[in-house]
């Protein structure tokens, strides 16, 4: 739960790996915000999910868009 704080250098490297490279002046504020978000969502690690699947909107029988013929 209590992972060490994200450093600006780590934020820069991760962003690069994610395909969202950051300008140098963004490293510090993005690291701080990402750290805060992490502190909020890390709470979910307390939960024992067992076999619980993720909620997701997926239906195998979705009709294709081109079959849509009435907008109203």
């Amino acid at each position: 739960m209590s992972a060490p704080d994200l450093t600006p250098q780590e934020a820069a490297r991760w962003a690069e790996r994610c395909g969202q490279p950051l300008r140098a002046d963004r490293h510090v504020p993005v690291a701080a915000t990402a750290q805060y978000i992490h502190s909020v969502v890390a709470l979910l690690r307390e939960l024992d999910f067992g076999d619980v699947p993720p909620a997701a909107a997926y239906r195998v029988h979705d009709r294709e868009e081109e079959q849509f013929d009435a907008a109203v």
Partner: protein
Amino acid sequence: MQPYELSLSSAAEEIRARRLSPVELVDSVLERMERVEPRLGAYVTVTAGRARQAARAAERAQTEGRLLGPLHGVPMGLKDLIDVADTATTASSRVRAGHRAPRDSTVAARLAAAGAVLVGKTHTHEFAYGLTTPQTRNAWNPDRVAGGSSGGSAVAVAAGTATFALGTDTGGSIRVPSALNGVVGLKPTYGLVPLHGVTSLAWSLDHVGPITRTVEDAGLVLAALVGHDPRDPAGLDAVTHLDYRPTGGTDLAGLRVGVPVNYYFEHVDPEVESAVRGAIEQLRDLGARPVDIEIPMTRYIQAVQWGLMVPEATAYHERTLHAAPDLYGADVRILLEAGALMSAGDYLRAQRARTLMRREWTRMMTDVDVIAAPTVPLTAVPAGQETVTWPDGTVESVSDAYVRLSAPANITGVPSLSIPVGRDRAGLPIGMQLLGRPLAEPVLLRAGHAYEMARPARELSPAA
């Protein structure tokens, strides 16, 4: 009373009886807009020429006895995330400069087919990613925030510059500004109203719905919006209920109203709590039976909301954030950038926690028909205020406070109706939300309408 002051249902009745023409109604709203809009900043774009043309066509149809229904000739504002063919969907962002929507969103097409007249596109907090809408001023006090992200829509309805409007709601963005501006806002059940052609903030949490002056009006607009659209992957395809006009008068005998003993009344301004508890008493006087309920898994609400919203929003903006990050406002840009650093594990934990939360809510809601709670824990704060300090010393960001009580309905997908239940000593509106089981919109509308009928009629905001 001027036509711009009429509720949607009253305007519809006047038009049906031919005591009011769509041209008179639209002109009245546009004149009102000329007077107050410069001070309010509710609109990105005003489509006056197009509106007058549509009003003339609606008037001809009225004369020929071809009314399309209660929305015939009624002026509306659409949040500027909602595509209207050949107009820009700016999302109140420089990122969308030069945008042109190629076709109508499903909701815009349905409202046009129902006869509604677009008077303009309303401001949103940039890309709906915020709770204040800084371009727009509160309809009751220009020094206070409008709330967001559908701030323009709520202010327009409150000030008489639209008879109704649409907003979107990913963490409270219909209900928060509705509460802060003293109007009615309905976040429908997830998937009930198609999102095709509506700019997304976070797909799994997004909703579109009406902002109106009365609960009855919300039902009239909702009826025009529902219906399956196969282009909407989250759309419900088994919706048969198409008449949402509330029925049953003021008799709420037998209605079980859940009153939360935890979460919803914690860190809530005393004046807000007092007004909401007073409204619950009013529901009891109408025959409803209050039932104490405990809200499950409250410790994880913010974590789930953020765990879903932040990575989904970043994914939506991936290309433009990469190409033109400077075009985003500072507050939105930092969240989008930081969202890229969240792991798939974080996102999946949020989705799994949502499964658990939805199950627990389903269980809880077998004991009640509706849940009554404050919409937001405090009224509209002064523009520029960033935090609120609660009596126990807890400091909370204004955005976190405004989203705190509305997010559960986005996570679980249950419908939530915000209605005005009074004003605080500063004259600022207070909202109460009624939450229900999935697809229980008729129950919420019936309860809200009964409350509304039992209270004195409300006025438009002074639009100071």
